[in-house]
């Protein structure tokens, strides 16, 4: 097999075996759904329902504010019982709509199916925006923005991200195996919007069943399946473009600067629902796993389901949790509590116990250069981090701190256990603050 990849990165133990062969299971609705107004990068949506309102599944409950923003929808039918700040995956209470499900799970009547063949590209984009579609790989960037290249930029290739390079997660893997019709339909819609022919689905070689299945399914649709060498962070846009097309996104640039648009496979399937069925993004597949979970599973989760409810569906906790991570272990966010709801970007929930964690005190940098050799952007993490610790923002900027994608390879490999990504992020914050001042 011809396995492509990018330069740099590493391969942590992927631990996908616990959930890779578990079919997607529908997660029953919890007692109450906590739906935050901020679930995407960009301006948070503005809540437009009131306490006591009855809502239907798919009804808009918060409207988009500005271009880089999307509306939020009710994930089931029921009553709005509170609008108040609730603990958000970001780690602080943020405004949320709390819905008590009525058990009917009834879709809003106003949602009508469409025929994508009859619609033009602008209408399709507005359908995607109104459905609240965001990048479901975890970054939650509004999809319609990525599909609107500025004048003068030509897009010739669409890449579907089925890499799922984060250890433990298997949600996209299961989706590619079980829901390939939705995926292919989404690809056809995306191709129509972008006017591109070349389509590549990048999949890492640790998912041979998905590669085989999609090869069979995609054959009549002129979609190329590109098997990739298992290497983290191949699912990062710029690394995936490099691996699939050998094109380099310039420093500070976007994928569209080299003629490519990348979409996650989950996003693509959600686009199919948004256009074909007229249904907004109110549920997603998430992997609940880790040594702290009795029975790891892939669940179809309604947006707003508290994490505790997901744990309950997976046989409960296997011992006292010491670390709760939303997303993958490399780039996911540690959570303060299981009261936090799953949101549109929640690709997984990982639970670790105290003995599973390797906590070492940070030591001095021994200049071994491992962080430099694994950095997929080819930066010098240790140098930037040293400048960041001394608040030498200009020097950190000179070493291209802003190009860091915060993938965590340097922190993972560091034998001195230095918090390199955090230091670089600190420097990036300083650089952005300085630029705002100028």
């Amino acid at each position: 097999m011809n396995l492509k990849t990018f330069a740099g990165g590493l391969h942590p133990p992927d631990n996908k075996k616990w959930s890779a062969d578990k079919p997607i299971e529908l997660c029953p609705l919890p007692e109450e759904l906590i739906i935050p107004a901020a679930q995407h990068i960009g301006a948070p949506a503005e809540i437009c329902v009131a306490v006591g309102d009855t809502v239907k599944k798919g009804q808009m409950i918060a409207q988009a504010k500005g271009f880089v923003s999307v509306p939020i929808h009710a994930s089931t039918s029921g009553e709005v019982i509170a609008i108040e700040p609730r603990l958000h995956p970001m780690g602080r209470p943020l405004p949320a709509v709390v819905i008590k499900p009525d058990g009917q799970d009834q879709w809003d009547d106003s949602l009508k199916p469409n025929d994508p063949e009859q619609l033009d590209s602008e209408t399709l984009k507005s359908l995607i925006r109104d459905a609240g579609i965001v990048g479901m790989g975890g970054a939650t960037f509004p999809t319609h923005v990525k599909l609107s290249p500025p004048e003068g930029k030509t897009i010739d290739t669409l890449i579907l991200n089925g890499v799922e390079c984060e250890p433990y997660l298997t949600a996209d893997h299961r989706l590619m195996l079980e829901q390939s019709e939705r995926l292919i339909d989404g690809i056809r819609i995306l191709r129509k919007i972008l006017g591109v022919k070349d389509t590549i689905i990048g999949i890492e070689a640790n998912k041979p069943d998905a590669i085989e299945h999609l090869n069979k399914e995609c054959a009549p649709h002129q979609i190329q399946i590109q098997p990739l060498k298992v290497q983290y962070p191949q699912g990062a846009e710029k690394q995936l473009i490099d691996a699939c097309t050998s094109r380099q996104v310039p420093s500070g640039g976007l994928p569209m600067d080299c003629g490519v648009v990348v979409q996650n496979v989950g996003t693509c399937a959600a686009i199919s629902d948004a256009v074909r069925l007229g249904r907004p993004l109110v549920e997603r597949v998430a992997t609940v796993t880790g040594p702290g979970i009795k029975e790891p599973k892939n669940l179809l989760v309604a947006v707003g389901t508290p994490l505790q409810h997901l744990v309950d569906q997976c046989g409960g906790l296997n011992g006292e949790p010491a670390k709760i991570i939303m997303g993958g272990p490399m780039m996911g966010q540690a959570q303060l509590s299981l009261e936090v709801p799953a949101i549109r970007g929640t690709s997984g929930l990982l639970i670790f116990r105290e003995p599973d964690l390797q906590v070492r005190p940070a030591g001095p940098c021994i200049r071994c250069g491992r962080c430099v050799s694994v950095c997929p952007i080819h930066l010098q993490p240790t140098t930037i981090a040293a400048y960041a610790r001394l608040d030498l923002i200009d020097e950190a900027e000179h070493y291209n701190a802003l190009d860091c994608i915060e993938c965590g390879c340097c922190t993972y490999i560091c034998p001195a256990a230095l918090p390199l990504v955090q230091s670089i992020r600190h420097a990036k914050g300083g650089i952005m603050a300085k630029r705002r001042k100028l």
Partner: protein
Amino acid sequence: MLAAVLSIGGIGLVAAAALGLAAKKFAVEVDPRELAILEALPGANCGACGYPGCAGYAKAVAEGTISPNLCTPGGADTVEAIAKIMGIEAITAEPQVAVVLCQGDNRKATQKYRYLGLTDCNAAQKIADGPKTCPGGCLGMGSCQRACPFGAIEMTPEGLAVISREKCTGCTKCVAVCPRQVIKMTPLEAVTHVLCNSHDKGAAVRKYCQVGCIACQICKKTAPEAYMIEDFLARVEYPQHAQAVAAVEKCPTKCIRDFSSGYPEGSSFAPPTVPVAKDNAA
């Protein structure tokens, strides 16, 4: 030999003459008062005046574009010296010191998660608003200590910033760097302070801190003039600070402290028994 001496000497003379002429011709006029002011300033380049360094401030004062009493580290003496140079009357600002309005160190206040990252308050604050459960308490990672140009701040072993009243010059650098606004400028004369910065309700404060203000109103009832309570937090009304001492013993959580009698304990900044006025303070 002679030719060499003459030629080198000659070149030297010509160059010296050229330099001398250039120095006369292209001389930059400097206001002599600017140099005198720069001489009078402490030279710490702390930035308290709003300028990056003493030279910038000296120039602005000499040009008359800014008030001459903005050098807090210099104190009254400096202001008087500058006023004399400028030939104006000195208006001395009341001397101020920075105070950390928190006593919740690692023994007394709880943490909401285990923080393993960079030892920097601003970096820690970005992760779920900092590890301390209290939203306003001192994070204890020493960002203010590193920012202080006068070595006036130390961290206790239990992770709390303590500011020396003698060494603090009132430059406000620590106030600017603190991500939780727990450091406030107060009059040097005022020795009684409410050492809490949490605006949460009393029941919530009790859960995460043994020494937090629970807004019970007892201080306000004891010395109505000297205290105000806003958003569930008591504050000393500094113009009436002299009366505030009456509530120190009454405060049930001991979050009102009298700096003239043994605070802060456990710090190398020896607890002064009487308020120490700086030499240059009036």
